[in-house]
């Protein structure tokens, strides 16, 4: 098994949990000794994924969000954010920059930012059943860093 450590968290889709989720992810990622920039990227991507579930999966109600983080092969952080909400009918359209159904406080840049800050981004969704966003980010070992 290449998995060396993991955590699983579940929380209701309250917007106040956005800050909690990204802070928890950063705390878990700290064991990979990331740079401040890598940590910022991880927090941002988690914030985007969790916000999507809060805004789009459960627009009119509170639902469950599960976040799992694991370290694979000792140096890659995998983050998955799952909900059991509305789902996305057209994932490709949802991932298009500036496309948004989220109202005036959303910019339509969430997936673009996740994609540019993470090395891998996968979105699986089925309408009425929910969405899982899985992202991976390689954290380079310290000795090769500046």
């Amino acid at each position, binding site marked *: 098994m290449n998995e060396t450590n993991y955590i699983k968290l579940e929380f209701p889709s309250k917007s106040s949990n*956005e800050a909690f989720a990204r802070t928890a992810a950063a705390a878990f990622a700290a064991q990979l000794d990331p740079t*401040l920039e890598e940590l910022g990227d991880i*927090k941002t991507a988690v914030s985007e994924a969790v916000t999507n579930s809060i*805004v789009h999966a459960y627009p009119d109600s509170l639902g469950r969000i599960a976040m799992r983080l694991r370290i694979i092969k000792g140096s890659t952080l995998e983050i998955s954010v799952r909900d059991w909400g509305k789902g996305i009918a057209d994932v490709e359209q949802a991932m298009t920059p500036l496309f948004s159904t989220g109202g*005036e*406080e959303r*910019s339509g840049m969430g997936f673009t*930012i996740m994609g540019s800050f993470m090395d891998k981004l996968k979105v699986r969704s089925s309408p009425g059943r929910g969405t899982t966003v899985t992202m991976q980010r390689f954290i380079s070992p310290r000795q090769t860093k500046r």
Partner: protein
Amino acid sequence: MTINTAFNSGRLTLYLAGELDHHEARNTIRRIEELLDEYMPRDCVLDMAGLNFMDSSGIAVIIRVSRRMKTLGGRAWIENPAKQPQRVIDAAGIDRLVPVAVGK
């Protein structure tokens, strides 16, 4: 998320501090619109030196302020973004819409 202001000869500077995410975005937009109504500035500067964290919700706020200033016949720009907000601004590509000034 806090906003401090300075107003000087038509220029309103908004010092954003703390974390700007979706949870904070709606109140932030409302607060900024109130300030724009109150001061009716010619220029609006978003100073992001004290902003520790921002996600795409911050992009929505920036675009909103920029549009609002355009309809008022004024200008908006960003100053001194900390590293993390700068990376989000770069990834979103909005520096093409809203100028970013560093080191003022």
